[in-house]
């Protein structure tokens, strides 16, 4: 076997491992946030494994599709899921290298996630149900504002390291130590708001209700049932975990393994879990302390984060 081919095979193997790992952890994160939120409201909350039970239940059910639905409706959840899974291979999680980082960096990641969003939005339009169209229109409105802010925030970190490759970003941060610059704080604040917006958390969307007037993400899923719904739910959970991992990679990479030794990996796993847990607490607290914004106020919130991200980028040059 030629070395190039074996390298490629190893990269794909690692990518598969990492994708499976994130797919396995994602429902746990979702339930964890749900549980912590319930505890803050003096409720018991679901057991930690509830996310897995829900997915298993949905996967066993039969699929009901509208008669008017075309292939777009069928393809939607599959493309969305595939996009989320391939995005996981572009982000370093435990080792300071992304499995498929040779394929591309920040831009590919944002593009992949956008592809998934596009697929889901068109699929929701496909059945012609008014809620689906409303949901897609709202989701796209927010995405159009959130995506530039996300890119600017990511570019800020890229500018510091001189690369847009996420693996190389994490490596340079580990090598030079984390040197603090005010733009990091600004970019983090901006990106945190974006993560809330992109994952449909409270100031933007409420993941716990199906209220017609306010729902965004849920409105797009109304027509889905059974395994299709499971795919979308699972992919959304993976996306959320991915965003939190991205924040961890960019702003607090300390503790990441630089080699594949078992001990280092174990330490990295603990560090990663701890950092994601801290971010999950932050998400929970924001979600519990804020009321959902009116839809027309959401652009204001996102413009705050766009402003912060832009400022972060500008300050780098001053």
């Amino acid at each position, binding site marked *: 076997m030629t070395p190039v081919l074996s390298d490629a095979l190893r990269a794909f193997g690692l990518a598969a491992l990492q994708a499976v790992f994130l797919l396995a952890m994602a429902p746990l994160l979702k339930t964890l946030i749900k549980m912590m939120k319930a505890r803050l409201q003096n409720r018991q909350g679901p057991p930690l494994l509830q996310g897995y039970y829900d997915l298993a239940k949905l996967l066993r059910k039969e699929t009901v599709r509208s008669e008017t639905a075309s292939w777009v409706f069928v393809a939607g959840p599959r493309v969305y899921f595939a996009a989320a899974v391939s995005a996981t291979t572009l982000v370093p999680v435990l080792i300071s290298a992304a499995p498929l980082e040779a394929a591309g960096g920040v831009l590919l990641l944002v593009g992949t996630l956008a592809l998934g969003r596009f697929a889901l939005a068109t699929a929701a339009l496909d059945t012609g149900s008014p809620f689906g169209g409303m949901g897609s229109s709202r989701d796209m409105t927010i995405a159009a504002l959130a995506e530039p802010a996300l890119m600017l925030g990511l570019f800020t970190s890229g500018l510091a390291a001189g690369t847009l490759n996420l693996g190389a970003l994490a490596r340079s941060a580990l090598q030079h130590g*984390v*040197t*603090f*610059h*005010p*733009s*990091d*704080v*600004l970019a983090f*604040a901006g990106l945190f708001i974006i993560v809330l917006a992109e994952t449909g958390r409270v100031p933007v969307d409420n993941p716990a209700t199906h209220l017609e007037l306010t729902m965004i993400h849920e409105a797009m899923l109304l027509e889905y049932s059974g395994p299709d719904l499971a795919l979308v739910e699972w992919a959304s959970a993976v996306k959320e975990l991915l965003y939190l991992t991205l924040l961890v990679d960019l702003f607090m990479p300390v503790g990441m393994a630089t080699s594949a030794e078992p001990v280092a990996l174990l330490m990295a796993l603990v560090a990663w879990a701890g950092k994601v847990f801290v971010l999950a607490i932050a998400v929970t607290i924001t979600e519990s302390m804020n009321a959902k914004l009116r839809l027309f106020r959401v*652009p*204001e*919130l996102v*413009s*705050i984060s766009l*402003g*912060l991200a*832009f*400022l972060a980028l*500008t*300050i780098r040059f*001053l």
Partner: protein
Amino acid sequence: MTSHDLLILCAAGMLVSGYLIVGQKRLFTTIRLFALQSLLLGIVAATIAVTQSRHELFVTAGITIAMKSILIPWFLMRLIDRIGIHREIEPFLNVPVSLLVCLGLTVVGYRVSTGFPEAVGGARHHLIGVALSMLLIGMFLMVTRKKAITQILALLTVENAVFLVAVGVTPGMPLVVELGIAFDVIVAVLVLGIMVQRIVDRFDSMDVSRLSQLKG
């Protein structure tokens, strides 16, 4: 994390909270954000006190945290509770435009800060940059908001900015001056609070632009 990093983290946190104050309409949240900003200022003072062993700065930190992040916010919240007005309904400029202007102001503040001879290298550059930006943002907030409470907060933001420079860059002020400033601020807030209540009594609104109307 070194003390240098902590300084920059706190200073940048102050700038971020300044931004969020501009982007917020709920008065309670703006007051909480101001309290956070003052707390960060207190941490900056305490950090410098430890690293440069300037122990008189502990007093500054203590006064800042006690007054600006506990006493004044508590007073303002009580005031709002009593008046019953919770939102800035329509500022002269809407939020996205204000944010854009503040962006420009921050860039100006940062650019100007590089001209100071003290601003060479490390944390000081960022402290001066953040302070100048906050100064400009505070002044901007003062002229574009209608609610008297937001204007008080803007004044206090400017005050925080000046304090940040005084603590972080200059050799520091005598304790007497510092105490004087502290009491000045608290008296100013009290007087302004009473003024706000008078305005509300008279006009049933906190909108200071109504003060320019003649009333027969």
